[in-house]
């Protein structure tokens, strides 16, 4: 199995798989592969993590999930491994990362919080504060969306 064929497969379907009864068969036909090969490659790509999921990306604003608060936290270095999982455990926290600091920027843990309302996001933030004892954070709400697309290769 060459990497090139995996890339070819991903490129063929990254904007959407065929919405048919036999999507893998149909993509296989378009690529000159067999259905078994397409399924096998997708399984391997999921297993090795090159594909996170084969799933629907929803337009969250259109669904009514209108609030997105990127909340940045100042977490003491020795508490990052303890606080990260507490934050990540909330369903509304879709992403939770540690990132570098630099002079003038001391917020090292980022949580992306999605909710139907700002209040819903802020309730999560309140719970995180209570569970971790952290108090230094900034809620950064999106005022304008200039671009939002899926990651393409």
């Amino acid at each position, binding site marked *: 199995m060459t990497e090139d064929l995996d890339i070819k497969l*991903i490129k063929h*379907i*990254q*904007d*959407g*798989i065929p*919405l*048919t*009864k*036999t*999507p*893998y068969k149909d993509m296989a036909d378009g690529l000159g592969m067999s259905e078994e090969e397409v*399924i096998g490659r*997708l399984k391997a790509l*999921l297993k*090795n*993590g*090159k*594909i*996170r*999921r*084969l*799933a*629907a*990306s*929803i*337009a*969250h604003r*259109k*669904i*009514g*999930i209108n609030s997105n608060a*990127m909340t940045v936290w100042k977490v003491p270095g020795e508490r990052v491994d303890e606080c990260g999982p507490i*934050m*990540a455990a909330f369903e509304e926290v*879709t992403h*939770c*990362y*540690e*990132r*570098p600091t630099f002079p*003038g*920027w001391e917020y090292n843990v*980022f949580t992306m919080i*999605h909710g*139907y309302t700002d209040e819903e996001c802020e309730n999560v933030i309140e719970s995180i504060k209570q569970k971790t004892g952290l108090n230094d954070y*900034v*809620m*950064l*709400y*999106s005022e*304008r*969306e*200039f*671009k*939002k697309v*899926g*990651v*393409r*290769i």
Partner: protein
Amino acid sequence: MALSEIDRKILQRLQTNLPLTHRPFLDLAKELELDEDLIIERVKSMVEGKYVRRLAPIINTQAVGNSATLAAMQVPEDRIDDVAEVINGYSGVSHNYLRKGKNKELPLNIWFTMSAPSQEKLEENIKEIEDSTGFKVRMLPTTKKFKIGVKFKIY
């Protein structure tokens, strides 16, 4: 078009993996106790109605060999539009937002994510943005991941 109960049920399920089988929607139909044709028809309709951006592989850009970073800039009000346009011009930019601190004011206001085929190319792009806009770009790459989900609760 408003989402029906059935649409919501399908969407909730489709945020996790589609089965890798000969008839994946038939498998979903059994699981959700719905009809295969109905599921396909509803998914198509939700894609057309733009409730679903796409049903496709969600790519881990770093695992396929790309380098990626979150980046932030401090840009004065009257330059925001043209700086945002410069950033959007890069195909590796997947998100680009103007953000404002609610409980505290922060100088950084434009936040974007960029990926590129290599770290070198990524840094080159960032440098280009700095040169063409005249503003510093702060790179904030992930140093540790606790969660990457993006599964929404559909009411």
